[in-house]
């Protein structure tokens, strides 16, 4: 009894010693010198592997920053502090750009838009877009099957009960995955300073747009008359804000917009997000 325990302990221990010796030798002999800056850069990255920078993941991006093929501020998701630290590690000067936030430019949820019929197909926006565009009548707005929420690596989006995606501003890192996946280009990436939005994409004639969705911009021009010339323009039956001149400070009363597609950000949306 005792002897079998001893034999097994001796043989297992012996094998352990032998293999650890082998590993120790291999560790010395096959050591690959890695630039310590890669680890340092890596530590400053969000490590969510979102792909917003265009590289397969954070580790690959870090390698490319160190080898000089990617810019230190190439990570769109990183905080200003993080980017500065990376720049310091690499010994370069970078301008930290303004933070980008995804904005859902549509308010046509289930309550607002008319329905075409019943959609039986795959619950994916892109697939629905290929097959006539889901059950909402609007050909321009949100389809509502939440593909953007599925691809968000930061849990910064959710679908509300009206089946419209909501961006949680504090969590949004501006990686742009949602904007890329949206087949209707309803999601746009805007700098944080853009506070005013025309929340509609419908280019139809006013009457038709109104029948499609109660929140559709009908191109009435009331917002245009309230501002200086060129600050808001009318294109394809849609008011468009010229952000070079306007839209950074909400000054005009947005409640004048009859369909309510003219929105100041930071009020109800964030209240909804908080709730």
């Amino acid at each position: 009894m005792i002897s079998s325990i001893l034999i097994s302990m001796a043989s297992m221990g012996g094998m352990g010693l032998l293999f650890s010796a082998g590993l120790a030798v291999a560790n010395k002999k096959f050591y690959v010198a890695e630039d310590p800056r890669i680890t340092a850069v890596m530590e400053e990255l969000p490590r969510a592997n979102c792909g917003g920078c265009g590289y397969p993941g954070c580790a690959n991006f870090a390698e490319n920053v160190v080898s000089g093929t990617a810019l230190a501020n190439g990570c769109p998701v990183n905080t200003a502090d993080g980017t500065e630290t990376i720049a310091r590690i690499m010994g370069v000067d970078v301008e930290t750009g303004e933070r980008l936030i995804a904005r859902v430019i549509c308010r046509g949820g289930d309550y607002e838009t008319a329905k075409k019929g019943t959609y039986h197909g795959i619950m994916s926006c892109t697939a629905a877009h290929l097959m006539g565009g889901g059950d909402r009548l609007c050909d321009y707005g949100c389809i509502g099957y939440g593909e953007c929420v599925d691809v968000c690596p930061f849990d910064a989006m959710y679908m509300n009960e009206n089946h419209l995606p909501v961006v949680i501003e504090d969590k949004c890192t501006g990686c742009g995955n949602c904007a890329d996946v949206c087949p209707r280009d309803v999601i746009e990436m805007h700098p944080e300073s853009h506070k005013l939005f025309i929340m509609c994409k419908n280019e139809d004639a006013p009457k038709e747009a109104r029948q499609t969705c109660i929140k559709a911009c009908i191109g009435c021009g009331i917002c245009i008359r309230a501002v200086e010339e060129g600050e808001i323009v009318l294109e394809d039956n849609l008011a468009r804000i010229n952000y070079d001149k306007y839209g950074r400070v909400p000054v005009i009363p947005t409640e004048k917009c009859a369909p309510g597609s003219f929105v100041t950000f930071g009020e109800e949306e964030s209240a909804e997000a908080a709730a």
Partner: protein
Amino acid sequence: MRLPTFIKGVHPNDYKHFTCTKLIETLPLPDHVFISLQQHIGAPCTVVVEKGQEIKTGQVVGSSDAYVSSPVHSSITGKVKDIGTFVHPVGGKVQMVYIQRTADEDQWELMPAISDWQSASIDRLNQRVRAAGIVGLGGAAFPTHVKLAPPKDKTIDSFILNGCECEPFLTADHRAMVEQTDKILAGMAIIMKILGVKDGFIGIENNKPDAIETMRAAVRQGEYNFKVVSLQVKYPQGAEKMLIQSVLKRQVPTGGLPMDVGTVVNNIGTAIAVANAVITGKALVERIVTVTGDGINEPKNVLARIGTPFQDILNHCGGLKEEAIQVFMGGPMMGMAQYNLQVPIVKATSGIVCTAEKGQPAERAMPCIRCGTCVSACPMFLLPTRIARLSEMGHTAESEDLGIMNCIECGSCSFVCPSQIPLVQWIRLGKLQVGEMKRKEKEAA
């Protein structure tokens, strides 16, 4: 004797009894038409008329310089009321010309008839096919003049006229074969002259014995050397590649075209349009449409002007029944469900199917049970369930390896799937992914 056919495929109930004995009725001239500028595969047309312009039947309203494109013509005599975007039956909004009828009788703008087509030059005939705006009327709407001018290095030795009409419900080609036999044969002779081929075949599914009979008699009488081939009833018998396999026992190579095996296939409707264009000089402004299904009061075959709104045609057929649930453009296998009955018929509209029972798709697809039924149904020898799964998971390169681009979207796999998985939709999504991957590769290179 077993009738010739292709391998695999499915056997849906054909539902042709609604209209297979109904004579083709000419629809009264519509009050207004919407002529879509995109009724074919290829470059869309640009408008060549102005708002307010008086216009004659057969006048060109849109044309394009691109080779793979086809002009569109006004189908009534009237006035251009608007040029704008309207809902298209294939989905989305496209540019259309809205024409209001002003005359009770057609004033035709005809092209000069080529009555001596036997001696006319091939170029002149094919120019006419193009000018008349003829596209494949079977449903794909590929410009016919492109098909009839194969590259020089391909030798074409046989021509097949496609009278299969394998989609359930549709009987437009069937009735045309019975009632407009001479025109079809003349059109076929013209097409064969343009192609310069000797061997002509007419493939007809065996569920149309009267059509086979009539065509055989007419071929004998007209002393044509065409061969009428009676084919087994199976879906998709009328798909080009299947038809070539059934009639000629030739297999179109993967990724290839019928011309790679020396064959060109055209639809019955196309032959009629060619005969009209050459012999009478009429552009393609009307087509035979089957209005059918258990959701319509009087199922009919109608000769309708292109651009006529669905609602007008349905009204002429007694209107929709109260219990009607779905209206399709095209057959139930490959057709598109419609949500707006103001959409106009286009060149590719072979039928309007109105169903009263709930259609095939379930509320929710159930998990794949790996029964392999779709695999034994796929006439292109693909693995639908596997490809669908790969495209669901975003494994684009792998799905391309499995031949996703060869899918003809016939719908056989979705039809037989006991779990009612929308396989074709997944495959379409996968095709989009492959297209995007190719584009990215191209950009990177």
